[in-house]
């Protein structure tokens, strides 16, 4: 019994999630007209940033591992 996802799968998932979160936070921004969805927009943006950083970190890890292997 092991976790069925590999590093590359998680990488792709993080990228997709970061894009969705950024688009959502941008669409709900009060700068584009007041939204009636009452969520904490600042926190949504923070979550998007955190996921993006995780994705970028995974990209860096991948580059380093490729350089070392090459």
């Amino acid at each position, binding site marked *: 019994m092991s976790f069925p996802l590999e590093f590359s*799968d998680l990488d792709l998932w993080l990228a997709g999630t970061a894009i969705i979160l950024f688009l959502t936070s941008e669409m709900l921004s*009060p*700068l584009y007209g007041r939204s009636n969805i009452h969520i904490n927009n600042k*926190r949504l943006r923070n979550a998007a940033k955190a996921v993006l950083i995780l994705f970028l970190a995974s990209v860096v890890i991948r580059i380093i591992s490729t350089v070392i292997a090459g």
Partner: protein
Amino acid sequence: MQLKSNPAKLVPPAILSAGSIALALSINYASSILAFIGLGLVFWGGLLFYIRPERYVKEALLDKMALPPLVSLNEIMTGLGYKSKGIHLPPKYFTNFESAKVYFSAENNAKLPSPEEMQKNENRVFLKNPDGILITSPGFELTELFEKNLGTNLTKVDLQYLEKNMPKLLIDLEIAQKVEMHSTDSRVNVKIEGSITKGICKEIGRLSSICGSLGCPLCSSIALALAKATGKPIIIEKGLASEDGQILEIEYRLLEEPPEKTR
């Protein structure tokens, strides 16, 4: 009487539980599809917990709560015969720099006391020689909120900074939908559209000592911010609200101060 439970509150734990089960099953059956589903559900369940809305107050309730103190203030000032315009004073007029007060002179066009004279009487409400009253601005707390959100003390910034950042701040705080701010010489014009205080503005238009003098909490908070940034006393020269209260146009005037006493 039983309070109704909010079904929206049950969504995040339900998603989180479903995600956890899917993740556990994915490990058991070595299924990557189940793992993706589980990961997504756990993430969004957690995220929904995190981005839960802040508590909102209904606009009608806000109006009903904010209006009575302003009506009382108007009655007191009308009763005392104060008809001059309120002057929002910058911090240098007080020994306590956190003070945010408005000065009303007993006579129209009377000279504003110097900072030194004001500092001697800053804890009093009724002032003598010249006669006047000193009250805390209704926008005092709102100005503190502006400072907290901008992450700076407004005494450390200038008018250009306010012109650039105040409109964005008011929109970010969901106080208004659109804000414009322009300064020319000794005047600053602010146009606010879709403000949350539109109900209050509509009502206090009838209060002679408040509208266009002391201002509603929002107008007064902007006057205080201007006073802090420019270091000059500020008067609300004009305050015009459209019929439905949607558009608010305010003109602020920066006062020239009395010359400092020679020692």
